[in-house]
């Protein structure tokens, strides 16, 4: 008996019991649809996370001072010399940050804007350049100049889209600042927008926020390989400054963040594989159940076929093809349902990405489920003795 013959027989049987077949393929259908849409959601959110991590820059370390009071923060000179004597550091940028209401003429920002006090090194360390005007210069720090660079979104909010803010004067917490530059667009990193901020000289910011200390220092390592060594050296130095109080500071490694994010999405994938396995197992049992019913119902048909010369393997093949047809049809419909679900999720704002190999795997797997779970009923059918099967009512 040929495959095409087997498939035709399976189809005629499937079409003869449409409702029952539909119900029994439902398990596989839901399983496949769930797996594909969950993986698509996971992939979508992983894409978003990795895009945000990309905004952090590569080979970046971040020193955060978490202690309170002047004795447990870094002074600006301490922060600027933190990297001295450590090999493998490309650049270092201390930051003081806070927020302030920004105003231009009668236009005020809806909420207060993040204001970061930075040094001229910030530009290279964060790889964040002005698209217009200039960056903060060393002289600005010395002179406590009231100059500012605007992020693209903040500029649009205050000046309107396409209008150059350079040369204008804005008010930060009521104090006049001259806009000297407009930053290039950079997107978000870890949920914080880089385009909704105002950069001012770090010395000016310390005055604005009335804080002496520096709480954040971004460190750019020369390469990924040196990151661990740089981290260790920074740890040693900070430990000396804070007299061994390791709770006062924290060093965050952008690579570690990426690894964490990767491992989170890996864990999610594993869990989804588990969900997939369970739902397909349940679907497979459904198919096995219906195939057993079918074998009992069609005992006489099996007897007739055997009397007319069907061998054991012909009957086995017929029922296996039937089970595999039901399950792969369920799988195919599940794939279609998953694409529909993904389209709906995209519309409601959840990022999804359906990967073609997941679609392929789940289809192949659902066909396999049919074969594996069809094996027992098919074997039961094939092992019937013709004389007993013919006598069956």
């Amino acid at each position, binding site marked *: *008996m*040929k*495959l095409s*013959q087997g498939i035709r027989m399976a189809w*005629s*049987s499937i079409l*003869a019991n449409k409702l029952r077949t539909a119900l029994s393929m439902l398990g596989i259908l839901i399983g496949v649809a769930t797996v594909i849409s969950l993986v698509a959601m996971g992939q979508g959110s992983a894409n978003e996370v990795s895009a945000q991590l990309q905004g952090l820059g590569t080979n970046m370390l971040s020193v955060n001072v978490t202690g309170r009071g002047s004795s447990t923060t870094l002074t600006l000179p301490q922060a600027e010399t933190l990297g001295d004597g450590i090999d493998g550091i490309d650049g270092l940028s201390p930051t003081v940050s806070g927020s302030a209401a920004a105003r231009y003429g009668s236009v005020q920002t809806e909420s207060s804007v993040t204001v970061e006090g930075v040094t001229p090194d910030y530009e290279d360390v964060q790889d964040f350049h002005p698209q217009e005007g200039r960056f903060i210069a060393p002289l600005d720090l010395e002179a406590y100049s009231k100059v500012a660079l605007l992020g693209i979104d903040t500029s649009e909010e205050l000046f309107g889209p396409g209008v150059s803010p350079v040369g204008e004067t804005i008010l930060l917490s009521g104090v006049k600042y001259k806009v000297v530059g407009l930053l290039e667009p950079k997107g978000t990193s870890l949920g914080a927008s880089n385009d909704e901020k105002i950069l001012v000289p770090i010395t000016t910011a310390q005055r604005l926020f009335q804080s002496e200390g520096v709480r954040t220092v971004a460190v750019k390592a020369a390469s990924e390989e040196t990151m661990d060594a740089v981290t260790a050296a920074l740890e040693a130095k900070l430990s000396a400054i804070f007299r061994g109080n390791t709770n006062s500071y924290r060093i965050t490694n952008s690579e570690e963040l990426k690894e964490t994010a990767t491992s989170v999405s890996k864990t999610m994938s594993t869990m989804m594989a588990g969900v997939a396995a369970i739902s397909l197992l349940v679907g497979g049992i459904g198919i096995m159940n219906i195939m057993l019913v079918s074998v009992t119902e069609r005992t*006489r*048909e099996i*007897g*007739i*076929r*055997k*009397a*007319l*010369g*069907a*061998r*054991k*393997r*012909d009957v086995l*093949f017929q029922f296996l093809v039937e089970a595999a047809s039901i399950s792969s049809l369920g799988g195919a419909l599940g794939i279609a349902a998953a694409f529909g679900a993904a389209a709906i999720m995209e519309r409601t704002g959840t990022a999804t990405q359906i990967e073609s190999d997941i679609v392929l795997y789940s289809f192949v797997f659902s066909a396999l489920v049919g074969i594996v779970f069809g094996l027992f009923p098919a074997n039961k059918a094939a092992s019937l*003795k*013709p*004389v007993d099967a*013919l006598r069956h009512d």
Partner: protein
Amino acid sequence: MGRGRRTAAAHGDVSLTATLPPSSERAPLISIRDVRKSYRMAGEEVPILKGVDLEVMAGDFLAIIGPSGSGKSTLMNVIGCLDTPTSGSYKLDGQEVGGLSENRLAEVRNRGIGFIFQSFHLLPRMTARENVELPLIYRGLSGKERREAAEAALAKVGLADRMDHRPNQLSGGQMQRVAIARALAGHPPILLADEPTGALDTKTGAEVLGLVQELNRQGHTIVLITHDLDVAAKAGRIAFMKDGLLTEEGGDAREAFARHPHGLEQHSR
């Protein structure tokens, strides 16, 4: 599946012509020697066939008659290779069937025997033509060969205009004729009919029986099993089955029947 096709190719000529090899022309088509069959029921061995001897020559029309419970259905199952005897020898067309594997038995059924059942045993979802093609599918014939053979067989039983009807669109007599066409399609050496008129009214039963007789006149070997003496009377030879024993041939058998008339009387009414 591959093996099925190979065998079909190897035996292609024989299967389609059903002519016996000249050397075996005088050898019996069916040769049964001391066949016994017993079933285990509730822990007890119940003998059904108690040593049956039977020879059927090519071209014979043999009726096996007997009351229900006499073992004639079991004998039919053995002749049809649907069941294997507990002991004894059964040669079909010169080949000992006793020790064959299940797969070989399926092949013997496919090539050697055309079944005609009391309740037709057609597959309800298939058309008449598809039903007739069924044994040819398992023989591994191509779609074209199957269609031609099925159409020829259906034409032979007078159903050329009903080929695409399903069993539920056919009358009982037509269904039985489809079943006969199915039995004929593969040109098996033997047609084995189990109460072919049992589910039909007298008139259609007679028509079907006429068809069976006509097939015998055309050279088909027929073994017919019945409990109806009138049906059996149409056969060239009658064998009587009683209590697991077969009493063969004309005079002796009729004497045996005369001694125990009641066993048959009950069933022939």
